[in-house]
């Protein structure tokens, strides 16, 4: 994925423009999910659901925005896809997940081997 991200602009000259853009978009929208997974946010079932939901919202929002912007020529669908899919839907997932935090979102000081609150000064 990182390779795709790093090389997408470079290979844009070799690939059809639309393909290169889609490769880069796919790499970019999958990065947040990759970061969450790498930091073990999805180590329990609820965390995995949140990660998948966030990724799905971003992917759908990004691609609808790209497609609508290309095909409809300024009817505002691309903007609405951006606002609904990339901004509001993930935000709603985050708000719900914050209320019922998965294991990967919590910090238990006992996990760090620390005693007491607030850490050393």
């Amino acid at each position: 994925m990182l390779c795709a991200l790093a090389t997408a602009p470079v290979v844009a000259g070799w690939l059809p423009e639309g393909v290169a853009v889609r490769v880069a978009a796919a790499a970019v929208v999958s990065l947040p999910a990759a970061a969450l997974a790498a930091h073990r946010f999805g180590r329990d079932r609820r965390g995995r659901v949140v990660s998948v939901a966030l990724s799905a919202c971003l992917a759908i929002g990004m691609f609808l925005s790209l497609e609508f912007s290309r095909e409809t020529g300024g009817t505002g669908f691309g903007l609405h896809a951006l606002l609904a899919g990339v901004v509001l839907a993930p935000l709603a997932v985050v708000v719900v997940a914050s209320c019922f935090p998965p294991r990967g979102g919590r910090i238990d000081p006992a996990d760090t081997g620390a005693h007491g609150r607030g850490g050393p000064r």
Partner: protein
Amino acid sequence: MNVGSLAARPWVVVVFVVYFVGLVAIAAWAWRRTRDAADFFVAGRRPGVWVLAVATMSTAFSGFVFVGGPGLTYVRGTVAMWIAAPVGITAALACWTVGRRLRMLAEVREVFTVPDVLRLRWGRPAALAGAVAVVVGSVGYLGVQLLVLGRVLEAVLGLPAVFGEASFPIAMALGLGVTIAYSAAGGMIAALASDVVQGAIMLATAVALFALALAHTGGWSAMLESIAASDRFGPAFLDPAAPEVAWTAIGYFFVFGIGILGQPHMLRSYLMLRDPGALSRMPAILGVSQSIVLAVWLGVGLAVPALVAGGKLAPLSSGDEATTAFLSGFAPDAIAALALAGVVAAIMSTSDSFMNAAAAAIARDIPRALGRPSRDELAPARRWTVALGVAAAAVAWVREDLVAIVGLGAFGIFAASLGPVLVVGLATRRVGSRTAFVAIVTGLGAGVLLEAGRSHGIVSLLGLPEGTVPAAIAMAASFGVLGVGVAHATLGGRVAPLDDAVATALELDEHSGRSPSARAE
């Protein structure tokens, strides 16, 4: 920034006098509560989640959200919205990945700054490179903020009529003086207190201006129809990812979505949180408050083109005039005063955090990275806060072009130098000290060079697609260095040595991701 007919209106002057007196009062209050370096750098690690979330929001958003964002939208269309679009995920990403690791590390070691984290994880060279990146980006960012602050105050308070040509330096000195007063006196305690007040002003301003924008354009649908039907803007204005701007859209999302994990002024918030368990709730408060404030960008950014298209507002000579033109023509005095206070609040809340971050880098991080830690870090930090503020203003005054290059690209510089190493390096043990150092230096060097070369067409010279965001290339380069380093360590089967307590806190030990009870099993 031309505030035109808003200058020196009684309401505006009254609001600003009250606001500045309030900030000085906060400085006096915080001075008595700042007793040691922990108070100065991380507010004694006493703040709760609500205070920190609102303060982080106001720190994250500078005057760009109120002035630059709507202006960029007016000039470039809705592709500019991709800068703001990642707000739906950035709070969660920051709190649940890097922020969580930083806070866990602060449970077992003394961690006040991001370079502290780099030093504990990778040793002194990486910490030194990180501290240099913090200073370079902070001074540039601070310089730009002070320039804008001076222009706003000069116009708002009607100073040219009194001081003539000396009005701009006087206005900048006034803004700088107030910011330095509370930043140097009360450190992060004062900064957090003022950030909460400033955040509340920003929220109120954003809601008021968004409602006003819809009211004057006939509502959301009418606003979009008016833009699409006009010859000046046309349907393409409303395509945020049209073919000719698609690379820019993706670049913005990459830099502002992932690069948020490298912003030292924001990451420090997580180190200050009193109850680490509360970090799980922070994304909701932070994300919602950020989204509300961004409504000002969306509202004014679309209302101004709609009003121009409808002939209710004269075409602007510069995008930066969008917000003030809207305030001058369509906002009642009280809301205009609130909005201008919101702009200044956004600038000052960002400036105080950068002053503190840069002062910490010079007074604490660089001496420690060089193996010469200072016994007393509080007094030097106060002195450096003053010195950095004055230096940033002086550099901005003498070399406005240089400051503009570094300052406008500061987000990207932080994103490229610190973001990748924190995202990847705190998640796997296979990032060694040398890899981390090279990744930071690569991101910093590429970020500064590409930003400086932007106006010389460096993107085209490198054979990259038109519209590619330079900071995205710098970030990708830093990620690339980390990818090579991780691959090398994986193939060689080697992992970097790490202190046991640090490894446990960062979940990089052999029990990674397992709770103590699971480990016992």
